[in-house]
């Protein structure tokens, strides 16, 4: 039965990707991409990767889609059909695929117990020793936050980089050219500065839902030790709550609630919180990001360290997502003002 589900999902996945390749309407392609991500998340659940599935669903199907839609609203949604195609891309991707297919020949059977990956001493320690060593039931969190905490610091930095990158790129003053067409086409109304003032239903529902979304974000943030979740997923959920607010009540209202400058500050603060833990452990005489030293009892120290860095991750991700959203949504606003003049 599990095999059946698997094969069914895989077929859907392939059909979805082929659809992405062939449709000319970018709006449809984006929606299909979101669907592909969602199917991928389901496959991840099947493969026991619940944390990854959670993230893929929140990021691939959620945030990415929002980003694509925001861009489409600015640049228009139709791909120009093209006549003849050069054969090189096809050959190149066939070559890469061929090499990979060759590589799979000697790969161990999927799911068997005696693959090098499962037999490795690394895996053994992560699975069997980490619950006592770190004291956190969710092994993904232990590995993510402690054993490979520095990778996660890098990941936070990547998100921070994306945040400032979008701000840097999209804050450039827009020089209008004469031959510019009006971007966007009717089916996508961009985020209006004043929101949608006449729609009673979304207003009521948003007011009803947003507290729950934020609450759920907090739950995911602090429950990451025991179940799927953690700072990253929580950050995305938090940001989603605020983005929903802005979609319904208008960007200006959100900017009043959370000023752009404030977002920039907490964006930096998140990275500093994370790095700060490392600096403190260094000042106490241990290596960077060694949590054992944070408290007299190593396990308590690990708990404290993981708690703080997860907060750092959550803060950075929320701020970065908001930065990016401000960048894209604010852009259409500015364009509208330009066009109006």
């Amino acid at each position, binding site marked *: 039965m599990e095999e059946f589900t698997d094969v069914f999902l895989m077929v859907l996945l392939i059909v979805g990707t082929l659809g992405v390749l062939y449709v000319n309407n970018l709006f449809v392609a984006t929606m299909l991409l979101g669907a592909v991500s969602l199917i991928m998340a389901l496959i991840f659940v099947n493969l026991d990767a619940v944390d990854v599935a959670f993230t893929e669903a929140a990021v691939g199907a959620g945030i990415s889609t929002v980003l694509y839609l925001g861009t489409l609203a600015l640049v228009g949604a139709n791909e120009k059909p093209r006549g003849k195609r050069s054969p090189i891309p096809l050959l190149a991707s066939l070559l890469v695929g061929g090499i990979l297919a060759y590589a799979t020949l000697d790969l161990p059977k999927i799911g068997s117990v005696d693959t090098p990956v499962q037999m*490795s001493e690394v895996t053994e*320690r992560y699975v069997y020793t980490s619950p006592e060593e770190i004291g956190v039931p969710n092994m993904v969190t232990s590995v993510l936050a402690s*054993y490979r905490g520095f990778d996660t610091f890098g990941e936070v930095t990547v998100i921070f980089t994306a945040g*400032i990158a979008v701000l840097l790129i999209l804050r450039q*003053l827009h020089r209008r050219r004469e031959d510019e067409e009006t971007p966007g086409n009717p089916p996508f109304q961009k985020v209006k500065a004043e929101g949608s003032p006449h729609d009673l239903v979304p207003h009521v529902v948003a007011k009803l839902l947003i507290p729950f979304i934020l609450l759920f974000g907090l739950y995911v943030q602090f429950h990451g030790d025991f179940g799927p979740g953690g700072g990253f997923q929580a950050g995305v959920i938090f940001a989603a709550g605020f983005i929903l607010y802005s979609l319904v009540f208008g960007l200006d209202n959100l900017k009043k609630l959370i000023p752009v400058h404030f977002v920039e500050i907490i964006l930096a603060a998140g990275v500093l919180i994370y*790095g700060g833990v490392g600096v403190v452990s260094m000042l106490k005489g241990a290596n960077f990001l060694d949590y054992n030293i944070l408290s007299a009892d190593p396990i308590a120290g690990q708990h404290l360290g993981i708690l703080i860095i997860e907060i750092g991750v959550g803060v950075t991700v929320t701020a970065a997502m908001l930065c990016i959203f401000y960048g894209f949504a604010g852009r259409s606003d500015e364009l509208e003002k330009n066009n109006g003049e």
Partner: protein
Amino acid sequence: MNALFSQAPILAIVIPLMGAPISALFRGAVLPWAIATMLSAASFWFSIDLLVHVNTVGPISYELGGWEPPWGIEYVVDPLSAFVMMVISGISTGVLLYARESILKEVSTDRLGMFFAAYLLALAGMMGITITGDAFNIFVFLEITSLSSYVLISMGERTDRRALFAAFQYLVMGTIGATFILIGVGLLYAMTGTLNIADIASKFDAIAHTTPVRAAVGFLIVGVAIKLAMFPFHIWLPNGYTYAPSIITAFFAGTATKVSVYLMIRFIYTMFGEDFSFGEIPLTSMLMTLGVIAFLSMSVVAIFQDNLKRLLAYSSVAQLGYMTVGIALASEMGLIASITHVFNHAIVKTGLFLTVGAIFYMVGSTYIKDLAGIGQRMPITSFAFVLGGLGLIGVPLTPGFVSKWYLVQAALERGDMVGYGLTIAMLISSLFAVIYVWRVVEVMYFRPAPEGAECKEAPLSMMIPCWIFVIAIFYFGIETSVNIGFAEAAASFLMGGAK
């Protein structure tokens, strides 16, 4: 002091990494610049410290989070990584010293805090790639570097809108390259169950014959080659370098591709082992062919460029060809040539791009036709360019000569037709270098300046760093014990069975 030193490996990375968010918080132009310069200098200082220490005492391993490898992430400082770190942070500091005036002209002023934050992130990312002993950590830091490079290159849009598209092209290529590396690491992980490079290396020989490992080698090499702008994958580099802001071009020309060369050496020598790389798979002939094609064809292409920055960018691709050939020769001499050339080309190219930046600052163009008579209008700058150009050609007394000399020796060491052919090819390529440098010099000195052009040098804050690099070129060309010495140490460490 001792306690501080024991943390030096991480400090060299974390200082710029955590300096980035701090710099992003500041408004204005001067403060972020000062922060970035100071942090970069601090990082440089720690790198020198590490380099000296490693060459006297031996490799250092630093366990992040206090978890011993292979469970945690390990930082490994050996003669090679310390040397490359020193080059990167040194170049970065030199470029930053120069940056203050130049950047005001080329990037909009209200975002400079974030601009320098991105710069520091690129620096930290490159340092991280160099020092890490963990295969996946390479990918993470590679992406930090790449993301910040894309945005830094796109900042050139204020002077030329084509910077945006160049950045996008680089983004697509760079992401494909990084993902290839990710696939390679994944395949190796599937066969070894570990991510630690030393650990993979120790298990490598036993599994070297399996198909996933062979494919992994291919993916890693191609992934790095894309990042390195090796010959067929170089398309992103000329555009990126041409349209980026001057200091960014200077910074990346001296560092970004050098890190990729480092990665290539690290993968081939430390991870796969030379026996496998050059015995089992035909890496020598592949890399050598591509390298030779690169330095011959790209030198020719450089001759026909009408934009000085683009000319120098193509010359960079050609020079990277030399480094590839040095690796491919699979001898200690070749490796020394490669590693020295990393250092030499870094200072020569950075110096040249800084000079071009100074010209751009005054003239507002880097098209060669607009440079007529610069020799009279900006004599000091032009002279610096000429001296840098000599270094690029590889005239004796410049470091370019030293590394080519070693490369020729390594080629002749083979004692076969390939070696002689290689030597001749290098001579021809140097001839082309003479031509493209002369083309520029001719326009600069022997074409009359347009009417009404004023004679003015760039500000002192830009001229001094330029000349620091020019003097460094000649210093390291004459007093070669530093660069050659460290390169020899690194090469013998790699060949001497680190594996």
